[in-house]
């Protein structure tokens, strides 16, 4: 195995920051985070590139920082994407098992999943992920892995996450222009869920909400499989923008006030209180009504959660999310955000922490790195399966009589 294959890097070109996480594959398929690189993002709005030239500079800087910290050279990347154009839908693939012994093989599973990906999508759509949920073997529902079972008819339920090809091409083109190889393109919400949820939590059902700067990604798991995902193109930027608009202050000041004062639930003691704003020279320039500030922020945050609750609720999933709500992204730093989530979804809520992964402790605990870490985790899972399938094809080539599980 080559050295480079053990290094996995994830790149998230976010609205507020560009984040690169570098991981290293260690024994028994575990992955260890060895470096994190960041740069403020200036060419992205609502999760999508608007200024490619600026974004190129920021991405290069973040990658350099990560390489420096990890002391490795990054050649290929897993690219995280998001944007309002990303949608999901469930699909079902069917295959008749024709072999003599009616035993379901790995190829049958691949075929049926492939069949499920052949669906009617809007023009210019590209499928990002086709994630298997469960299989049906003849009349037996909810089979997690049908390989080796005997049946005549195999069905697969697949969750399809797709996006607009034209929008997706922008970040891909950017990374290609920087001479990096793209190992995979991953939906940010899916990556965050991979980083934050343990298998047990996936089994219990959980809703991961990534409160980003430009967009809010959310992914719901139930019975161990992803069953709903979405992007709401409203994020922290909207909070700042609302403040700038409502308090009649410049956006930069609104950003500062948001970081210093944001609270998800209206505090009790702000009525009538004001906040003096001093200029650099110490002169009083403006007095801000704290009640207004908090009202603007809480209304916006409550709305974000309500929209998500509505969207997830439509699928009837809310009752299956026993694992509760897991929050990540920069928005997870907002005070009382857990309480707001709990009251909106009527579910326990917590701030996410990367699981099943080791390495730099600081990075793992930061909710805003969840997506980057998830990208690395996605990469490690992919390489593991690639390794297994490579080994399998090798064995099948030279020992065709061997039957593999």
């Amino acid at each position, binding site marked *: 195995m080559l050295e480079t294959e053990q290094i996995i890097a994830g790149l998230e070109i976010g609205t507020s920051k560009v984040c690169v996480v570098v991981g290293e594959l260690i024994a028994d398929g575990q992955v260890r985070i060895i470096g994190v690189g960041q740069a403020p993002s200036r060419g992205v709005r609502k999760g999508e590139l608007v200024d490619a030239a600026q974004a190129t500079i920021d991405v290069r800087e973040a990658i350099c920082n990560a390489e420096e910290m990890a002391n490795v050279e990054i050649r290929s990347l897993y690219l995280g994407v998001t944007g309002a154009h990303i949608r999901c839908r469930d699909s079902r693939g069917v295959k008749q098992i024709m072999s003599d012994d009616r035993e379901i093989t790995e190829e049958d599973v691949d075929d049926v999943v492939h069949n499920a990906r052949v669906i009617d999508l809007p023009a210019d759509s590209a499928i990002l992920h086709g994630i298997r949920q469960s299989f049906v073997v003849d009349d037996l529902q909810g089979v997690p892995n049908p390989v080796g079972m005997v049946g005549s008819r195999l069905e697969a339920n697949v969750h399809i996450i797709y996006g607009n090809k034209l929008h997706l091409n922008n970040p891909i083109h950017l990374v290609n222009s920087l001479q990096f190889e793209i190992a995979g393109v991953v939906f940010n919400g899916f990556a965050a869920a991979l980083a934050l949820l343990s298998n047990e939590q996936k089994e219990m059902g959980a809703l991961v909400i990534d409160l980003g700067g430009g967009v809010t990604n959310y992914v719901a798991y139930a019975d161990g499989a992803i069953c709903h995902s979405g992007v709401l193109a409203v994020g922290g*930027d*909207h909070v700042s*923008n609302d403040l700038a608009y409502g308090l009649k202050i410049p956006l930069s000041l609104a950003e500062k006030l948001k970081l210093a004062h944001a609270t998800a639930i209206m505090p009790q003691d702000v009525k009538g209180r004001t906040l003096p704003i001093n200029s650099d020279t110490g002169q009083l320039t403006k007095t801000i009504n704290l009640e207004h500030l908090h009202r*603007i922020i809480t209304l*916006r945050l409550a709305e974000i959660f309500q929209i998500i609750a509505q969207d997830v609720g439509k699928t009837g999933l809310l009752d299956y999310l026993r694992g509760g709500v897991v929050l990540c992204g920069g928005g997870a730093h907002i005070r009382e955000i857990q309480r707001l989530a709990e009251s909106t979804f009527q579910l326990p809520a917590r701030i996410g922490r990367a699981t099943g992964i080791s390495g730099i402790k600081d990075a793992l605990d930061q909710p805003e790195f969840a997506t980057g870490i998830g990208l690395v985790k996605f990469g490690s899972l992919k390489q593991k399966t690639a390794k297994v399938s490579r080994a399998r094809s090798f064995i099948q080539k030279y020992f065709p009589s061997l039957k593999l599980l």
Partner: protein
Amino acid sequence: MSEEQLGNFSIPPLSPAGPNVRVFGIGGAGGRLAAQWAQLGRAGVSFYALNSDLQALRQIAGQSGIATVQLGVGSLRGLGAGGDPEMGRQAAEEQAAQLKSLCQGAQLVIILAGLGGGNAGAAPVLARMARAEGALTLGVVTLPFSCEGRRRNRQAMLGLRQLRAEADAVLCLPNERLLAMSPQGAPLLEILTRSNEFVAASLDSLARILLEPGLVNLDFAALSAVVSGRNAEGAIGTVEVAGEDRGLAAWEQLQKHILLDEGRVFADADAALVCFVGGPDMTMAEIEQVMQPLTKAAKNAHILMGATVDEKWRGRLQVTVVVSQFAESNVENSQAVERPGEPAPNATGAPNEIPLERGRFVAPAIDAGSERSQETLQRQRKRGRRGHDENQPMLPLEMVPRGRFEKSERTVRDGEDLDVPTYIRQGIKLN
């Protein structure tokens, strides 16, 4: 035109002996155009050149097929009208009886004039006489080049309005547009000859429609249906094509036709008359290829179609289109826009009266001369117009600045723009 007169046209009394289309070329430009047309020599059409300038008349007099009439024999003594339409008008009024007799028995009178000059003042008088004789009166006028000065242009617009009030229909051919046909740097004589040839060819094909029996016949009734009605505005264009795919080529050329405002007139047309002239090999498909897009382009128009087969036209196809619109505006719009001070064409106003806008009007001093008081009125009319110009320019679409989200797509969910602060959408007041 009254109903009863219209009735006359429905059974055209075609007498093979006497010509029943008369073409009057008034003034220098009109005379030359008439002479040009006379050279094409169509049976059933007689040509007259009317001018108060004897010198100009003598140039035409030698040519066969065109008669000359001197205007203002007594008052102007053959010296021309000096660029004053009022003089031309008076001269024509003096000879009203003579003009009337010239129109006698005619079914169609076509008045050709270059507006802006002195003799053009005779055109409305002649139109009145022709109508009094019961003829369908069609004015075909050219407007001066804009470089000929404001005064001439103003006179032309006034003359156009007067003629429009008197004639059944006026086809207006701005010289500027004709100029655009000629290559840059072409000699003046060539430009004028070319534009005259061009107009003459169009008019000749119109006469052909009316005079020659067609396969699908068009007659005076058809023409009156298209052009009659006071103040109708029109345009005429003719194209000739030969070779393969004649139908498609003809439509293409019609769309580029300068006199048809590059095909734009169709959209506003209320009526259109389309005539095909072709050889015995003319196919229905060719006609279809022109008519189908034309019907589509002229959605609101009442369309009449005619076709003539002529052995001489084997392998060729000529399409002539006459369009008119009954409502005011458009054909000379480009001219009107250039001079916003000019009076808008007024359907009801008497020919010599300048319509005044309401309000902001102060009567000129009593002791002021007629020249001065006219000037005052003119100025005030202009001032009033500026206040409520019908052609108010459209404001550019104003974009509400979107701050942080300037360059991004709006986040719209269930018709709600989520980029707008939540408290505003929920109507919560901050105070």
